[in-house]
């Protein structure tokens, strides 16, 4: 760190004050204009873009949900035909899982994790830019196809043989499978960046036991992505091969196996739930501190619970297949493992309750959303225990009970904390506070609307209403509750509208935020709101879990980084001892060009396998441009 400065390489110790920030701005800035926007590798700009795009997809998915609720409000309704409805529920599920829930959690992490660990950019920033473009292309593929009446209609799980060559004519199922590939690639890219950022770029002194819980959650989530996503990649690729070149992975007539798809899909699909939930749990652990005004209780227990959930997540997938006729004894094992996940979930809930009990709660919007999270997520967790029981599941599987259950888990468990997180970190992202009044309105509308919409679905399921039906006959006793749910969804929609209005208004004219408006203890609040392009003028040095609480007046800093090129500190994995000064890549157009080339290849390959051959050439060219040697040392010890 303290190697002598040479004349040719100015260091941050040589200059002070505005001269330092000017030099850093010059080195790290994203130039204004279109070119700058397309070439930027700043994790904050990309993170904001990611969050913005994910919320667009949330709104679009919400419109689809509203259409379904209108259709189901009456028996034998004629608003949507069977074909359109089937596209809509497939789109809603695929969009919410692949284009909203997973990306939005990664997006928040792309923005926050480098700030929370006290570094200047994410690891592999060009890969980060690439991952955003690929994600955008995948989302555009799905929605443009839907607009052209080519939207997938096979369910977000695309079970074979229904999605196979024989029963899904046209390109609808291929578009679903290829959209998966896009979101896979982008999710895997972000996961790798996360792991490396968290392992190697933490501020000096941020030992493993001083990592904020949200960062821990993202670390575990990233490992889940790295281990779970390849399963769905194998599955969707095999499906495309079955459809395009006549392989028979899933064709029982040719020795393939229908259930193989379900095993592969759910081996990914169940960890997927925790890929969405764990970041949200990390947000709760992190946000609860400033609002309870004390450190979160049971840091070690919370981190262990995250890790335990991550491990158990891979042992539960069969509980999505309890009625496929697998051996009963084997299923009982999966009942046990599915129920066991309630233990780490319980550890977290009880630790948060203890934190609130011992703290002095401040009832601002983020805390309200945390309270809403408790109320709804505990219901979702308990119904999760119910469906984990094989006999119970034989009655409720594939009914509206399950629809209610997973909306309680995903909306209650992930969207509520996420909305709290948006209110909480909005000042850091934009430099302005969100309106507290509108925030409270949106909280009450969303909480009441959500519960009134989804709670009746538990009863509908027990009354025999299956999922994924585009209508029902009038002689079935489901009309009243469906109408009630549909009317309640208006309240829920109003809540989200208030939220969006609040975001737009506050971004333009909200109160200007200070650096640390909530009095929070973590490093992202140590810099300005919004942070400068280089995040920190001096890399902070951490000597506790709550650096801004324990050394509020004088945060120690590390010195000696060059100001004329993008440098950040690489530290050791366990103890975060400084090891090297690493050059962080500069802005580049190549990630965008690579993403365009990759997108062309992937979309083209829906139509012909030769696209993989010819489409690889532009990708190779773009990658050569991307990795063209710089001729300067990448890092200095």
């Amino acid at each position, binding site marked *: 760190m303290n190697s002598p400065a040479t004349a040719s390489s100015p260091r941050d110790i040589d200059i002070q004050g505005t001269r330092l920030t000017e030099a850093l701005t010059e080195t790290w800035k994203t130039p204004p204009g279109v070119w700058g926007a397309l070439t930027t590798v700043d994790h904050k700009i990309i993170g904001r873009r990611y969050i913005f795009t994910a919320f667009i997809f949330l709104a679009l998915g919400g419109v689809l949900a509203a259409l379904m609720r209108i259709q189901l409000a009456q028996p034998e309704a004629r608003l949507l035909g069977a074909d359109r409805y089937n596209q809509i529920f497939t789109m809603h599920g695929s969009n919410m899982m692949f284009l909203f829930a997973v990306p939005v959690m990664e997006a928040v992490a792309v923005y926050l994790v480098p700030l929370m660990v006290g570094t200047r950019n994410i690891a592999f920033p060009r890969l980060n830019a690439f991952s955003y473009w690929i994600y955008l292309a995948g989302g555009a593929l799905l929605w443009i196809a839907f607009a052209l009446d080519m939207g997938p209609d096979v369910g977000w799980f695309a079970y074979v043989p229904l999605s196979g060559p024989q029963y899904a004519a046209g390109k609808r199922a291929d578009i679903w499978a290829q959209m998966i590939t896009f979101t896979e690639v982008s999710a895997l890219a972000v996961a790798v960046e996360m792991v490396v950022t968290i392992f190697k770029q933490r501020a000096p002194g941020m030992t493993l036991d001083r990592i904020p819980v949200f960062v821990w959650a993202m670390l575990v989530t990233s490992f889940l992505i790295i281990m779970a996503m390849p399963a769905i990649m194998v599955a969707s690729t095999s499906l495309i091969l079955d459809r395009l070149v006549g392989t028979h992975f899933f064709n029982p007539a040719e020795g393939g196996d229908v259930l193989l798809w379900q095993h592969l899909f759910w081996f990914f699909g169940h960890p997927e739930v925790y890929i969405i939930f764990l970041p949200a749990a990390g947000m709760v652990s992190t946000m609860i501190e400033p609002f309870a005004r004390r450190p979160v209780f049971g840091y070690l227990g919370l981190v262990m619970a995250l890790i335990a959930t991550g491990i158990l997540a891979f042992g539960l997938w069969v509980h999505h297949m309890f009625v496929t006729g697998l051996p009963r004894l084997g299923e009982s094992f999966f009942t046990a493992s599915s129920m066991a996940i309630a233990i780490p979930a319980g550890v977290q809930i009880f630790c948060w309750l203890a934190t609130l009990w011992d703290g002095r709660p401040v009832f601002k919007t983020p805390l309200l959303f945390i*309270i809403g999270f408790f109320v709804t997520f505990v219901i979702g967790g308990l119904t999760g225990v119910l469906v984990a029981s094989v006999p119970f599941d034989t009655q409720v*599987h594939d009914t509206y009970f399950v629809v209610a259950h997973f909306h309680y888990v995903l909306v209650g468990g992930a969207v509520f904390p996420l909305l709290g997180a948006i209110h909480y970190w909005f000042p850091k992202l934009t430099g302005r506070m969100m309106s507290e009044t509108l925030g409270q309105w949106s909280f009450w509308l969303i909480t009441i609307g959500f519960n009134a919409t989804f709670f009746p679905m538990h009863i509908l399921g027990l009354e*025999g209403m*299956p999922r994924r039906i585009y209508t029902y006959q009038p002689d079935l006793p489901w009309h009243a509750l469906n109408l009630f749910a549909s009317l309640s969804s208006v309240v829920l929609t109003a809540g989200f509208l208030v939220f969006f209005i609040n975001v737009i208004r506050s971004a333009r004219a909200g109160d200007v935020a200070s650096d640390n408006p909530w009095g929070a203890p973590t490093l992202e609040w140590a810099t300005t709101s919004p942070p400068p392009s280089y995040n920190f003028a001096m890399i902070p040095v951490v000597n506790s879990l709550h650096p801004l609480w324990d050394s509020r007046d004088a945060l120690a800093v590390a010195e000696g980084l060059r100001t004329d090129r993008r440098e950040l500190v690489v530290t050791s994995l366990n103890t975060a001892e400084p090891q090297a000064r690493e050059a962080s890549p500069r802005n580049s157009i190549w990630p965008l060009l690579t993403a365009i080339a990759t997108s062309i290849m992937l979309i083209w390959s829906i139509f012909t396998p030769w696209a993989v051959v010819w489409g690889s050439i532009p990708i190779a060219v773009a990658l050569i441009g991307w990795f063209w040697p710089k001729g300067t040392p990448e890092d200095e010890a």
Partner: protein
Amino acid sequence: MIRVLRKACLSATLAVPLAACGSNWQSALDVHGTSAISLKHLILLIVAVCCVVWMLVMVALIWALWHRREGRPTPPQPARERRMTIAVTGAVIATTVIIGTFTIMSFFATRSLSVAGQDDLTIRVRGLQWWWGLEYIGPDPSRRFETANEIHIPVGRNVRLKLEGLDVIHSFWVPSLAGKQDLIPGRSNELVIRAEKAGVYRGQCAEYCGMQHAHMALLVIAESQDDFDKWANAERNAAAQPVEEEAAAGMQTFLTKPCAACHTIRGTLAAGTTGPDLTHVSSRRTIAAGLFETTRGSLAAWIADPQTIKPGNNMPMVPLTPDELRAVSAYMASLK
């Protein structure tokens, strides 16, 4: 002309809901089958325990939020931290005990459900887009027969269903009688059902199976052994020769048009296997997998334009003159 007839038939059939049956005839809470009854007990018990747990958590939450809101924050105090550790540990142990109990309970419930007693009635159930093919099989091949979408079972007897998916995955679910079981191409699954009480129970495909997944229902009619035997004997018979002139003309039309290529009517030359067996179609309460009550009008509407009534289904619209349509529907209605 045919358009007017079709419209008239449609509105007539739509106006007559299947009101003859109780409204909760497809419910996991209104149960009349041996396994559904024990499942309901398990469901209610687990739900009750979970309600208590949820309320306890909510009480703890409210208490945590309100018990001492005022005052300035103080740094964590060791004594309070110890109490919190004890409370959290206790709550985690309680969670473990509860889910352990649930696991053991559901293990034994599964075991008791899968032990079926003696069963001498076996039905092969085939799931197809979007109807149910049924074959009553037994040791004597001459007593086998084929029907569709309506299962008759004798009350108080175990009935073994051999479930086969022929095109895509379907799921057999009659919630008032038993939990569901999938029909998967390339695999054979089994489900034993037993009705404790006579009645009509509705079921519906529970695994998304394509465009008309919403319209893939079936009825289970549980009746006394005598009624069942009477029904089964009638089903074994070939179709009655039409007596009326119009029906006889309808039979001729049926056999000369493409109808016979897909449907079987035993006792005639019609021997297609793509669509449901129509030998006694008019004895069944519904047509088109639970869509309409069987009447001459609904039959005519269906034959006239199946793609409008149930878009995407595999029955094409066969062009018929109004006279032919009337004749064929008269013939169908005569197939009791």
